[in-house]
């Protein structure tokens, strides 16, 4: 097998430009490039409007790029779209299904569009909906509908599965349940999965590698661990004090790069002052902080060392929070 065939997705210098309604243009994608290896779980992390869905829909052949190259398992979707459609499974961000067919009938119908197909009962069993096989889509809960749309993406036993924000709008329990399903598909069935999300914990938990995308550009691609390791700081310390303290003094301590007060902590206030310290080396910073508190006679309450997250990576790369 050559190196080329081991790539599930190749994207080179992809640009997508839209005309703005009032004149001018919007560069939804500004020359992005990345590769996804066969068997990989690849995450696209970025806020709404970053270009994640546009990129995915170009790869799936739903949209035409302004320029750039795309290959799915070595095939160009612009030239051989039908060939690409047969080997990919797609879960769209917003899609509905025939309202007067049961979920089992929909899977059976969609399966008939492909030369290779999986049985509806097996798929429904995989996503935990076998007992709902005679239900219409509208009779399913939000979480069950998302599970069903994942099942519908698997009807042709695809090699590459594209999932566009599959857990958006789900409660934490349903989200965790869907995460388990996706991990199973990737690890046990060997599916290559490309997922977009704006939940950093989702990308961090599921993805082997994450591309951080913002305003149409990829700012970084790496494993979640290596992205976090690239941070100037490796995390932060949080604590509260019964009375306000000087943040400038805290920022000068060893292993600490900055300090901010988050609570009011005014004299006479019932709310204690809370502080967040950006740190470069946890052991040094905690030791310095404890020595400082002892010397100043300041009680530290709820001291917590919080490791860096992809949220911090995004903030450092873009200057904005992921949920802005």
């Amino acid at each position, binding site marked *: 097998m050559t190196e080329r065939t081991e790539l599930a997705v190749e994207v080179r210098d992809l640009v997508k430009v839209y005309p703005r309604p009032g004149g001018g243009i919007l560069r939804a994608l500004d020359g992005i490039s990345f590769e996804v290896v066969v068997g990989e779980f690849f995450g696209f992390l970025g806020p709404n409007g970053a270009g994640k869905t546009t990129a995915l829909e170009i790869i*799936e*052949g*739903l949209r035409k790029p302004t320029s750039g190259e795309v290959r799915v398992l070595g095939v160009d979707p612009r030239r051989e779209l*039908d060939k690409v*459609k*047969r080997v*990919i499974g*797609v879960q*769209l961000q*917003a*899609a*509905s*299904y*025939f309202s*007067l*067919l049961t979920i089992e*009938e929909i899977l*059976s*119908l*969609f399966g*008939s*569009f*492909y*030369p290779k197909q999986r049985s509806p009962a097996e798929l429904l069993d995989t996503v935990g909906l076998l007992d709902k096989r005679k239900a219409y889509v509208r009779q399913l809960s939000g979480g069950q509908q998302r599970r069903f749309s994942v099942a*519908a993406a698997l009807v042709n036993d695809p090699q590459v599965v594209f999932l566009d924000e599959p857990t958006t709008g789900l409660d934490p329990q349903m989200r965790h349940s869907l995460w388990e399903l996706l991990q199973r598909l990737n690890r046990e069935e060997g599916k290559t999965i490309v997922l977009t999300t704006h939940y950093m914990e989702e990308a961090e938990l599921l993805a082997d590698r994450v591309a951080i995308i913002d305003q149409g550009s990829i700012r970084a691609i790496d494993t979640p661990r290596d992205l976090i390791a690239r941070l100037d700081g490796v995390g932060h310390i949080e604590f509260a004090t019964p009375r306000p303290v000087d943040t400038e003094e805290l920022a000068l301590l060893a292993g600490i790069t900055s300090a901010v007060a988050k609570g009011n902590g005014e004299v006479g206030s019932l709310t204690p002052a809370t502080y967040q310290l950006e740190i470069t080396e946890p052991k040094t910073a905690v030791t310095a902080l404890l020595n400082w508190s002892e010397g100043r006679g300041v009680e530290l309450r709820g001291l917590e060392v919080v490791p860096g997250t992809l949220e911090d990576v995004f903030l450092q790369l873009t200057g904005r929070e992921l949920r802005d």
Partner: protein
Amino acid sequence: MTAITGTLRLAGASTRQLLRSSEVWATMIFFPGALLAVLWLFSKLRFEFGKEAASLMDLWVTGMGVLSVALGNGHAFLANIATWKAGGVLKRISVTPITPGQLIIGEVIPRAVMGMITILGFLVVGGALGANIRIGSEIIAVIPVMAMVTVIGISVAFIIAGLTRTPQNANAVDSAVSFPLYLFTGAMFPLSAFPEWLEEAAQFIPYTGLIATVRGIVLDGRPLTDFGPELAIPAAWMVLLVLAAARVYRFVK
């Protein structure tokens, strides 16, 4: 082979949905039934104009029957595809190997069959209620005419769905298109009662020749081959509308 299987499975799924749809039962069973009941109340009325006269029952069972089945079918279909477009069903289908052409064929087959069954039932019941309908072998000749009626109705539905953004807009355009058809195709009033220029202009409406053909077959017992000129204009319309539908209607923008 997969393409044929997929199209046939789409047609099967469409049939199943049609049979489960209350709107289809309303437009294809309840409305024609209610129309027949109303016509029966006026079965003694006759149109008289100049030297000519026509039974209202004969005129409306054939004209209104054909048109209401065609438009009811088209209307129910339009509601469906406009909703599919707005709701993302078509976008979901577009990521499968199914083409718009396969979807159109898959939808047209069961609706054409349903339209033909309804119009045949309408004519038979109309005949039983007093219209001078010939219920014999000649009624078979109505089938290809009704197939043209269905294809034209569904093509118009695809064009309207393709040109409008929401199901509400589609419904409004559909109503605006449908209303004049009842007045100017000869469905309700004899064309020979119109001013000469309007009578000639009405021949260019796609349904006019089809209604005249159905009337000629079931009221006068004339063979289908007598209606070459009447069917030429609807046939040309049918080709144009199918091409326009395929061009205008897209799964996604």
